[in-house]
C-alpha cells in the first residue's frame, strides 16, 4: 500500500538578510493511512517547518526543493480551489490555540466558518455538526460553548475547540505541532487521549510534533528524530526509545531527568542545538558528539536502512553495543 503522505528530499531555504539559508535539508518521511509518526527535536531542528511545508504554510520567500505527495498528489503544484480542498483533508493544530483563533469572533462562528465556506452547508446543519465535533473532543453540552468568546475559555478547552475545528472537514491527516506543550500535565493527558482516540476511531493519520521523546514514544507508532534541519533516525517508537542507534537520540533520552530515579549528574550534551544553516561540513551533530571521529567531521552521513528503520550515522554499526549498554 502506498503511504498517505510521502515527503522526499525536502529542502527549504528561507531568506535571512540577503542570503537564502537552509532550514530543512533533505528531509524524507512517510506516513501510512491510520499511522502516527512522531517528529521529535529541539528548537531550530526544523520539525515545525516540516509540518508547515506539508500544510503549504511556509513564510513568503521560502525556496522549496524536493517532493511532497499527499495520496499521490503533488502538494507543491496546488493552487486556489485545489489548495482549499487539500486543507479540508490535511488539518493542522498548533501549540498556542490563542494565537490561532480570532479573539473577537464567537466559538460557534469559528467552528462553522470552514463548513460554511467550502461545504455548501446550511447554518443549522453546520451548527449541529459543530456540536457533534465538540462531543467527539469530550465536551459535553457543546451548544453552550458556541456563543462564548475565546477569552472566556481555558487553554485546555480552547485546544479542544481547535481540534474539533480541525475535525469538522473530516480530514485524513492531522498535523499536530506541539498541541499540548502550553497545557498543564493533566490537561495534556486529556488532550492526548482525545487525539489518540480520534486516530483509532477515524483511522486518522497523525504527524505529531513534540520536543518530548517520552510523549512521542507513548502515542506514536514510529518516531523520527530531527537535528539541525535533518532527520537523523526514524524507527518504531519502542525500539527508538529503548535502543537508540543514533548518538543524538541516545543523548536526548539520557539528558531528560526521570520521574522514577534521581541521578547524581544528568548526562548533558555539550554546547547548544544548531540550526541547519550553521552546520559545518560532515555530520551536523559531530561537534557535540562524544563518539565523533575524524571522518564524522568531513563526511555527511546519509540515512541508511537498519533495524526496521533508518539512521544517519557513520558509526551506527560500531556504536550499536555501546549505546545499548549505556541506554538499555
Amino acid at each position, binding site marked *: 500500500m502506498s503511504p498517505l503522505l510521502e515527503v522526499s528530499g525536502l529542502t527549504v531555504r528561507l531568506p535571512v538578510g540577503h542570503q537564502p539559508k537552509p532550514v530543512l535539508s533533505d528531509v524524507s518521511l512517510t506516513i501510512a493511512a491510520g499511522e502516527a509518526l512522531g517528529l521529535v527535536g529541539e528548537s531550530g531542528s526544523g520539525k515545525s517547518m516540516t509540518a508547515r511545508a506539508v500544510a503549504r504554510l511556509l513564510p513568503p520567500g521560502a525556496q522549496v526543493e524536493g517532493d511532497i505527495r499527499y495520496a499521490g498528489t503533488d502538494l507543491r503544484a496546488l493552487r486556489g480551489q485545489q489548495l482549499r480542498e487539500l486543507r479540508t483533508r490535511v488539518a493542522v493544530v498548533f501549540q498556542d490555540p490563542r494565537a490561532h483563533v480570532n479573539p473577537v469572533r464567537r466559538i460557534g462562528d469559528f467552528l462553522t466558518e470552514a463548513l460554511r465556506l467550502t461545504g455548501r452547508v446550511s447554518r443549522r446543519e453546520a451548527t449541529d455538526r459543530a456540536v457533534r465535533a465538540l462531543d467527539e473532543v469530550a465536551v459535553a453540552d457543546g451548544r453552550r460553548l458556541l456563543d462564548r468568546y475565546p477569552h472566556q475559555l481555558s487553554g485546555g*478547552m480552547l485546544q479542544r475547540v481547535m481540534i474539533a475545528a480541525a475535525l469538522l472537514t473530516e480530514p485524513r491527516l492531522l498535523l499536530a505541532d506541539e498541541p499540548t506543550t502550553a497545557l498543564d500535565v493533566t490537561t495534556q493527558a486529556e488532550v492526548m487521549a482525545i487525539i489518540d482516540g480520534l486516530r483509532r476511531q477515524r483511522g486518522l493519520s497523525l504527524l505529531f510534533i513534540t520536543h518530548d521523546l*517520552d510523549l512521542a514514544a507513548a502515542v506514536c507508532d514510529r518516531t523520527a528524530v530531527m537535528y539541525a534541519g535533518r532527520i537523523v533516525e526514524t524507527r518504531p517508537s519502542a525500539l527508538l526509545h529503548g535502543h537508540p542507534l543514533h548518538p543524538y537520540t541516545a543523548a536526548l533520552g539520557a539528558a531528560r531527568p526521570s520521574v522514577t530515579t534521581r541521578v547524581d549528574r544528568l548526562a548533558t550534551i555539550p554546547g547548544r542545538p544548531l540550526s541547519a544553516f550553521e552546520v559545518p561540513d560532515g555530520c551536523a551533530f559531530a561537534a557535540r558528539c562524544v563518539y565523533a571521529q575524524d571522518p564524522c567531521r568531513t563526511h555527511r552521513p546519509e540515512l541508511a536502512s537498519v533495524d526496521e528503520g533508518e539512521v544517519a550515522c557513520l558509526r551506527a554499526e560500531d556504536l550499536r553495543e555501546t549505546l545499548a549498554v549505556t541506554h538499555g
Partner: protein
Amino acid sequence: MDEPVLQVEHVRKVFGDLVAVQDVSLSLPGGGSTAIVGESGSGKTTLAHIVVGLVRPTAGRVMACGRDRTHRPSSRRERRERGREVQMVFQDPYASLDPRQTPAAALDEVLRLHFRLGAAQRRTRVSELAGLVGLDDRQMGAAPASLSGGQRQRVAIARALASEPRVLILDESVAALDVSVQAQVLNVLADVRARTAVAYLFISHDLAVVRQVADEILVMRHGTVVEQGPARDVLDRPQHPYTQLLRDCVPRPGWRPQRRRVPAGKEAQ
C-alpha cells in the same frame, strides 16, 4: 538539621473573590531544597511572589533568616537586606536581562549595591560567579542578545547568587529550555548547592525535574497544599488522589492517557 532559613506560616492571599493561596505553611532548612508542584492556578507562583516580597499576604507570616518579611520594609537598609537574603530566577531568560547591560556589568551592579569591595575584588568575584555557572569571559562581556537561552538563564542564576542569598527562588526556571540545555542548567544548580550554602525553593509543574532537584515536595491545588513530604515518598507513593493523577499524567512508553468528559458549562464566566 540546619536552622530553617525560610519559614512560611499560615499564609493566605485573596485577590477580590479569589482565594489564591489558602493557609500554606512550609519550612526550608539552610542548604535544603523544597519544590512546590502544581498546575496553573494552583497558587504556586503567588506563594513565590509572597516569599520574595513582590506580593503582600492577606494573612500569615513569612520569616527569612530570622527577619519578618510580611510587611513593608521600614527603611532602605531593611529593604536591601531582604533583597540580599532572598533572590529569585524567573522562567523567561529572554525577558529577565537588561538588553543593554553585559552579564559582567549586571553582576558588578549587584556587588556594588550589597558589598564594599574594590574594583579588582569585584572583578575577581564576577569571574568566580561566572565559573560557578559555567560561563567564560567572552560570554560575560557579550550583549545578552548574542547569548542562547541556556546561557542567559545561567547569567540570571549567577546574578541572583551575586548577593550571596540564603534562599534562591526558582520559578519554572528550566521550563523554557531545550532538553539538552535543561540538563546543563540542572547540573549547574546541583553544583551551586553543593558548593554554597544556598537553599532552593523550586517552583515547577514538571515532576521529573523536581525529582532531580528537590529533597522535599509540596503539592498545591487551588491554593491549598494537598500533599507534602520527602520527594521520594511523594513521587513513589503518592497518597492524595490529585498527586496520583499528576504522577499518572507523566508520559512514558506504553502510557494510555485517560479521556475525561468536561462539561462546557464549567467554563461559564
